[in-house]
Structure formats: structure tokens, C-alpha cells
């Protein structure tokens, strides 16, 4: 359960988010809005990469700013640019990196790594430099590296913005089928329409929270 109460975020005295309140328990949540409307800041509140200036955020009762360890074990985060989140040289090592320091044996780590790479079609590339993957494969690798840690919530900030049409479709389908609760920031309104609920941001305010079709309609009518 994601619980956000009267959250405002200011940076350099400038309001970035204002008075945002939302309780999110649906499985698939879309976040839409124009560039600069505060979507990324909202997403980053959920795992403590951003902190509220006023108000509270809790994830299953934990505060992301004060209980970062507990929250990051529950919340996986996928960024827009996979090159910036793949930190290890090869595919298998990057996935295994997520399991460091969790008290698993080497064979447990290897088993979980190959399991997740298999599931998303990257098993053949386990020893390949991550650099040799295509854009779509890199984003899948980033997703594998997050999912291998078994989070209960996945936050994705424009995960398909840098991908071509085919890979956008591939990644979108995978995200929609995940058993995890999903919070996805996106400009892909078709993807937003497939979610259970949508949040529409404008100028740092949460303008609308509810049925995706209605939120998309308002976005296209008033804000585009």
C-alpha cells in the first residue's frame, strides 16, 4: 500500500510538487502529464530518491526517507535510460549484483540469475558485455536486475521513452503482466489506458486521480 499525504516538494525555494495526496492500492497505476509537471519527482518519492518538504510518504508503513533499506527491498525502480542503471560489465553480473549482501550462496545467486534471464529471453547473453545488447534488450536487462531482488512494487519512470515501437510494445506487455504492483510514468497514452487507475499531474499538482480513460481525455483536451 502506497500512502501519500499532503506532500509538497520544494527545490531551491521553487515548488515542484504541491499538496499531493493519494492512497494507491490498485495493481497498475499510470502517471501522466506534460514535461516538467512533477511526474519523476513523484516517482522518486516512492523509493526515497526524493524526499517531501512537507507531508508524509509511507510504503507498507515504512518511510522511504528514514527507512531506506526496508523500502528499497520492497520497491524496485526502472529508469528511462538503461545505460545509466546497468552497473556491471556483463549481463549475468549485473543481475547478480542485485543479490549482493543478501546472505545468499553463490549457487543460489546463480540459480536466481539464470531463472530471471530465462524468463525474459536473455539467457543466451549471460556472459556477454551489457554494451553489446540492443536498446530493448538493455531495458529488459535493467528490468531483470530489478525483478531478481523480488520487489513487491515496481516503479518505472518512462521506461519506453528511448525505445523503438516494437520494443516499446514488448516492454509494455511485460510490465502489464507483472504480478507486482506497478507505478509507471509514461507519455505512451495507450500504455496508460491499459492501467487500472491513472494520476494526471500538471504544474506539480495532482489534477485528477481515477479512471485512466477520463484522465487521458482531460489531458488531451486541456493540457496538450
Amino acid at each position, binding site marked *: 500500500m502506497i500512502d501519500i499525504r499532503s506532500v509538497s516538494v520544494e527545490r531551491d525555494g521553487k515548488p515542484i510538487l504541491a499538496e499531493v495526496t493519494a492512497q494507491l492500492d490498485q495493481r497498475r497505476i499510470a502517471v501522466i502529464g506534460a514535461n516538467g509537471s512533477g511526474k519523476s519527482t513523484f516517482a522518486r518519492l516512492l523509493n526515497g*530518491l526524493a524526499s517531501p518538504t512537507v507531508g508524509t510518504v509511507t510504503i507498507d508503513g515504512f518511510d522511504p526517507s528514514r527507512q*531506506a533499506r526496508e523500502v*528499497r527491498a520492497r520497491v524496485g525502480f526502472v529508469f528511462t535510460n538503461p*545505460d*545509466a542503471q546497468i552497473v556491471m560489465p556483463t549481463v549475468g*553480473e549485473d543481475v547478480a549484483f542485485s543479490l549482493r549482501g543478501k546472505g545468499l550462496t553463490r549457487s543460489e545467486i546463480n540459480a536466481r540469475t539464470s531463472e530471471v534471464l530465462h524468463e525474459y529471453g536473455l539467457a543466451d547473453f549471460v*556472459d556477454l558485455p551489457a554494451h*553489446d545488447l540492443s*536498446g530493448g534488450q538493455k531495458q529488459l536487462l535493467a528490468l531483470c536486475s530489478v525483478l531478481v531482488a523480488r520487489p513487491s512494487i515496481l516503479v518505472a519512470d518512462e521506461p519506453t521513452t528511448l525505445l523503438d515501437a516494437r520494443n516499446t510494445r514488448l516492454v509494455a506487455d511485460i510490465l502489464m503482466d507483472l504480478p507486482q504492483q506497478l507505478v509507471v510514468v509514461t507519455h505512451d497514452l495507450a500504455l496508460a489506458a491499459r492501467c487500472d487507475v491513472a494520476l494526471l499531474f500538471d504544474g506539480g499538482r495532482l489534477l485528477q486521480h481515477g479512471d485512466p480513460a477520463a484522465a487521458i481525455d482531460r489531458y488531451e483536451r486541456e493540457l496538450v
Partner: protein
Amino acid sequence: MKAGRGGRLSRLTGLYVPGRSILHRAPASVKVVGLLCVTLAASVPPPNWWLLCSLGGLVLGMFLVTRLAGRLVIQLWAMRWMLVVVLIPQLVFLAWPVAVATTGRIVIAITAASLVTLTTRTSELLSVFERALMPLRWMGVNPVRVSLVLAMTIRTVPVIADRAEQVREAQQARGRYSLRAFVVPLLVGSIRHADELADALAARGVED
């Protein structure tokens, strides 16, 4: 699915190539110690043809046994200008056998090192470094962090090289060339990349 394109540079970096040769199966620590011995034997004693030829033969033999001879050719070709730069001044100032022997030492050291990186997963190599650095803990060295930085550097080199290529192409498209117009966007891009990487590490639960 097929693997996508890879930068020219990543092909030359000598990252792990999967295989089943004895060198692939040998423990990483043994390979590192072996590399250390070969490098010392090549560089410490005064140049000695017999010694250098046997070391060179050993390295060449290993490339053949591990079926990585193709990689050796690629690597020597990539090193050609560096070797010329090293060799020419020596030929001017020293007798040619000494110049050739010195250059030979460098070739042996570099190719032996890449033999190790080609047959060892980066993660295994890093855990050897981690263990080797353990005695330095009392000096405040954190071995895990050092090896993490090494791994991230290996990963980041081709990313930055790609970016440099993009900046160069953008300049080409506009038909303008200047060093500043090349360095500034590259630097800005690299700093942004470092910021993003820091966020990614935090999101993945690496506490510092």
C-alpha cells in the same frame, strides 16, 4: 533474439569470452598470480632472448590452447601504433636487439594480462582483488568499494566512448570542428551519467 550492435571499442577491451579450456577453468587467483610471475619474469631480469622467447611462446601457446588466437591478432593489431611509438625512439638511442627486447617485454605483459581477462569473469577477477586488498582494511581501504568502482569503470568506458562517437557525428553533420565543442558536451554528458548512475546504485540498495 540476436545481440545488438556493439561499439568497436568493446570488441577490443578483452572482456570475458566463455569457454572450457584449462585456463577458463583455473581459479582466478591462480591466474592472477601466474600473470604476476610472467610479468615480473619479462620485466625484471636484464633482456635475455632465451627467457623472452620462452615467455612469448608460453603466452602464444595459451592463446592457442584457449582457442583465442583470433583475439590475439585483434589485440596486436589494436596495439600497432602504440608499439611503433615505443619502438622508434629506442631504435634511435639504443642498439636494435635491446629495443626489440624491451618492446617484446611490453607485448608479453599486455597479452598475458588480456589472456587472464579473456578467460576470467570480471566478477571473479574482482573478488580476487577484494581478497588481495583485505590486508589494507586497517588503512581505511574498503576492498568491496574499490572492486565496485573498478567494475563500474569497466562498464562505463564503452558508454562514454559511444557518447563521444555521437558528439563527433553531430559535429560532422554540422560541418564544424572544434576541440571545445567536442569536450564540453562530452563532459556535461558524463557528469549527468555519473548522477544517474548514483541514483541507480541507491535504488538498487547499495548503501554507502
